[in-house]
């Protein structure tokens, strides 16, 4: 096999080579996963502080003290940035993708193990640089995760816009470089390292989602990297890419001729594909889990693949829908709006097919399945507000109100997080050789599912009433004051939901030590990771390369001895 020759490194012995600077995709996948795990708790803690400030603006917190309006904006910026980059981009793609893409396609490792190691450690440095922004003079930047210029380009525009903003940009630039390395690796691995018989159309939908996500990453992160470098030059070297002639607080900025809209075009050319980078792997996992636990082939495998490809392609043509109110030409708004409505079609196809998969199934409600069902529900709820925001005429009212955070938190925030949870409960036995506690998992599901709805559903109502987002207090604009009870409700819901996440943390770590021993295939699943030992050996398949005879979701096969046929079973039963 060609694939075997790529696996140039033997199993390492020392601690450092084995667990720290490891070339093994499984170790690197776990490193990414645990980085994302720390990041998600940092990001969640920041959101908790924001929720507290919104309803008790003058409260003095132990150790932290009073949260000032500018601090609120720093929390908001760092919450968004950490969640989008270091959680939603890191865990589903770099974490689970690294661990399971090679195993699911029957490869011994990623195509470029050294590049893989480099991309993780670059991400790690980016993460440290991001966190360091909290501890410099002026604190973390307040320009939001979208970093609109000139606010982000002028150190004089507010506290945190000094060194903190530079660190923020440098961190994102490093993250882009790491993601580009990762994307190259994923694409090459998928194209070149598949085992015999693993045709593209026999790949699990998870592999398709990681593959398409990698292509999006390759095309999108390069643009953000360039934009970040330009912004850094505007801030430090006197260029004026994004800053026109103007003043801050009566002082000339020394810039002229730049275009604030240029930043928005570059940012959203990255930013919209980024939304799909976050959610596509979740779609892959949901498909995998729904099929496995319905004991039924996925409904419309080809339609699912084509829908993901269509989402990937259209994802690059819709960035302008973030800019309907920006001063961009109203004619282009019309074009972007039509494209955005078009991208709703493949998303709807996926939802129909998930429901079709459940139809006529023998549904086992184990923990991964609960979260996959939750994913579908949240995806529908978050998706349904898309056609509102895609219409420029409705955006006149809804743009930059709470309707927008309601939409994107449901669809790319919590839906993607539910994808991560489903993946965690599903693959934990393979990764750690033990089962997670199902009772705790159930409780975790109910807290998360009901809690996130309680947090994000009311934000739609706030948006309808015209509540602008990114307001640190409701004390100044009088039409906001009657909305306080809703804001209070959201904060209380956030307390409960966040408390529920501690159940997950406890379950994760206690199961690692003392969970029930897992068998090689506890879920009776069909894909290649379940054909190898638990946990998999260094070269994944113990010296041989699997040969694939079947599609990825052969459940309920008539005439087969069991109700499932694994992908590497000899071709004795007729399957697709």
């Amino acid at each position, binding site marked *: 096999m060609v694939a075997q020759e790529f696996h140039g490194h033997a199993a390492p012995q020392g601690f450092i080579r084995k667990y720290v600077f490891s070339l093994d995709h499984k170790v690197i996948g776990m490193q990414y996963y645990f980085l994302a795990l720390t990041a998600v708790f940092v990001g969640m803690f920041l959101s908790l502080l924001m929720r507290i400030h919104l309803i008790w603006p003058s409260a003095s917190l132990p150790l932290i003290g009073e949260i000032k309006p500018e601090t609120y904006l720093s929390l908001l910026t760092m919450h968004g940035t950490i969640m989008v980059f270091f959680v939603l981009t890191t865990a589903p793609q770099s974490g689970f993708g690294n661990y399971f893409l090679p195993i699911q396609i029957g490869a011994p490792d990623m195509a470029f193990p050294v590049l893989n190691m480099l991309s993780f450690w670059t991400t790690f440095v980016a993460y440290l640089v991001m966190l360091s922004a909290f501890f410099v003079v002026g604190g973390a930047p307040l320009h939001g995760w979208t970093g609109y210029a000139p*606010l982000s380009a002028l150190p004089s525009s507010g506290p945190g816009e000094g060194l903190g903003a530079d660190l923020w940009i440098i961190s994102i630039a490093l993250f882009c470089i790491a993601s580009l390395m990762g994307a190259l690796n994923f694409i090459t691995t998928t194209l070149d390292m598949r085992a015999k018989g693993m045709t593209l159309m026999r790949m699990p939908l998870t592999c398709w989602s990681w593959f398409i996500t990698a292509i999006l990453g390759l095309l999108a992160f390069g643009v953000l990297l360039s934009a970040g470098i330009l912004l850094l030059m505007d801030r430090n070297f006197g260029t004026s890419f994004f800053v026109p002639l103007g003043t*801050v607080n009566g002082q000339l900025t020394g810039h002229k001729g730049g275009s604030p809209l240029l930043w928005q075009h570059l940012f959203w050319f990255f930013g919209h594909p980024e939304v799909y980078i976050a959610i596509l792997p979740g779609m892959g996992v949901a498909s995998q889990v729904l099929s496995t636990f319905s004991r039924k082939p996925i409904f419309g495998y080809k339609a699912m693949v084509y829908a993901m490809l269509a989402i990937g392609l259209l994802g690059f043509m819709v960035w302008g829908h973030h800019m309907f109110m920006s001063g961009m030409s109203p004619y282009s708004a*019309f074009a972007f709006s039509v494209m955005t409505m078009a991208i709703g079609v493949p998303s709807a196809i996926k939802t129909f097919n998930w429901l079709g998969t459940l139809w006529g*199934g023998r549904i*086992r409600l184990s923990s991964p399945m609960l979260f996959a069902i939750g994913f579908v529900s949240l995806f529908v709820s978050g998706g349904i507000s898309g056609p*509102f925001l895609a219409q420029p005429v409705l955006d006149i009212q809804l743009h930059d109100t709470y309707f927008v955070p309601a939409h994107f938190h449901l669809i790319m925030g919590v839906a993607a997080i539910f994808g991560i949870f489903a993946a965690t409960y599903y693959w934990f036995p393979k990764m750690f050789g033990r089962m997670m506690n199902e009772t705790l998992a159930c409780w975790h599901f109910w807290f998360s599912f009901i809690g996130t709805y309680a947090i994000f559903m009311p934000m739609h109502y706030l948006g309808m009433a015209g509540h602008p987002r990114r307001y640190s207090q409701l004390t100044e604009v009088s039409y906001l004051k009657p909305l306080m009870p809703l804001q209070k409700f959201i904060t209380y819901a956030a307390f409960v939901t966040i408390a529920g996440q501690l159940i997950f943390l406890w379950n994760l770590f206690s199961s690692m030590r003392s969970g029930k021993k897992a068998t090689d295939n506890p879920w009776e699943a069909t894909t290649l990771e379940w054909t190898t030992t638990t946990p998999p050996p260094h070269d994944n398949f113990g010296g041989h390369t699997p040969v694939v005879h079947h599609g990825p979701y052969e459940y309920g096969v008539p005439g087969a001895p069991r109700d499932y046929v694994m992908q590497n079973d000899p071709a004795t039963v007729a399957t697709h």
Partner: protein
Amino acid sequence: MGFVLLAVIWLITLISTYFFIAKTWWLPAGASAAAASIDHQFAVTFVLMGVIFVAAQMALGYLVWRYRANGSTGRASYSHGNTKLEIIWTTLTIILFVGLNLIGSPIWAAERFRPAVGDATRVEVTGMQFAWYFRYPGPDGKFGTTRPELVDPSSGGEAALGLDPKDPASKDDIVTGIMEVPVNREVEVILRAHDVIHSFFVPAMRFKQDAVPGLAIHMHFTPTDVGSYEIACAELCGLGHYKMHGILKVVSQSEFDEWIAAHEADKQQQQ
């Protein structure tokens, strides 16, 4: 467990939908000519999306309960999908989404594709950290030149905008802290920003537009109800974003004429 899931998904769906139907929290009453058609487009979108939302969630809850395994050993039906169904729902979704978009686009075109009418009340709106300034061209109908190097926010008013006193056209310009306009006459808004991006948002007028440094963005709306309406900044502009608000006062034409005449008189006295 299957039944609990069904119950929870259905309950969440019904409670969420109830508050949309009951309009417990809703768009503020519209007070501009465009409000009715925009609100109608809202209503159409709500009904269509609401039906899909409820149907999809109900189906999800039902399927999970109906097809739960419950320890039984039988096999699921062996099916890889149905091409005919895929084609049907793809087509229906395309018709629905693109159709919805087409219904809404004439409203957008009316709002944004044409310039303001000739006799519109012209107001220049300038955003700066963290206040809105409003400028009227005066009897000559011309806005005087502003120069960034003259901008002095601490002096307020004309100095805050950097109005050049040497330009004859600036002699009769009036700069105010609240925006007053006559009812039932189109308002042409010329949006500018000095420092960072701000966004001029008047929920009751169904009006929002970013004010971008370096650009003068011409927009228009027609207020139809006399009253005071709040202007909020809708684009993150720095630490005082939450308090960057203003007042839009819609009055009768005669009241507006008196108000502007009083300002003119003040201005003449100062010179």
